[in-house]
């Protein structure tokens, strides 16, 4: 399967990977660090920016 919608960012506390799905993040989901109790979610003011980028990203994928 070519499509994998999960990416990872580094935990701001311990540096371990936090697996994030951008689509679920946009939907309001929170993601836990694999090593420490840090939880990350999207801030309200960044939703429009991520929403626009994801919708354009989907258009690009559908073109393929």
């Amino acid at each position: 399967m070519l499509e994998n919608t999960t990416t990872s960012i580094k935990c701001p506390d311990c540096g371990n990977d936090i697996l994030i799905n951008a689509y679920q993040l946009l939907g309001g989901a929170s993601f836990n660090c694999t090593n420490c109790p840090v939880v990350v979610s999207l801030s309200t003011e960044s939703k429009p920016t991520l929403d626009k980028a994801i919708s354009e990203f989907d258009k690009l994928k559908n073109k393929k």
Partner: protein
Amino acid sequence: MFSKKREPSSFGRTQDAADYNNEKDEIALVDVGKNDQNIKQQDSEIDLESLVAAPMIAVSKANATMLSGQVQFILDYCFRKVPYELSKAENNLTIGSDCYEAIMISIVVMRPNIEEKDLPVKSAPIESIVPIPIISLLPINSIGIDKMKVDFSMEITSISSAKDHSQNPQNRKSSLSGKLGGDKSKDEEEQSKSNKSIDVSVEATKLPLPNGLLNIIELFSKI
């Protein structure tokens, strides 16, 4: 429609079709199936290099189109163009071109309040806002065509080989020409319906992200 005597032109159209095109100033479609000249042209020799190169060129063009679309998306939605004059003033740049800065989004990081974790009443977790580049969140995967298989049958009509005197006398130039084979009908009248085809199958795979993009993401993760 094309009642005049037909003569082949250099581009495979009939001469009267070209005339019709000029007269009417419209695109004239030539019916390939009914045109004897075109059938003869299809049966003419094709060199093997052209036959193999054509699908490969098409595949490389498709790859380039996919990748350039992806690059354009990254530049448009993950980076913001900063005019040269502004970036020069801010960053003391000497290179005379526009700069791109990453578009950042804010994520809310929640940590448990560790200092008060032993208290009977749990306090609210500590919230902090951390900016991260949007490019690190999007699942950008380069997709490229990895394998291509060209399948055709060819009837060899000529093989030529000659010494190449221009550079090294030991070198020889050779060429192979032939006709595309097909499922020809036994009936002579139905030969025009012979099916000549090349089967091209391509397989696309996920490519690793380019090193430059990985370096940018890695740099942001260290800030």
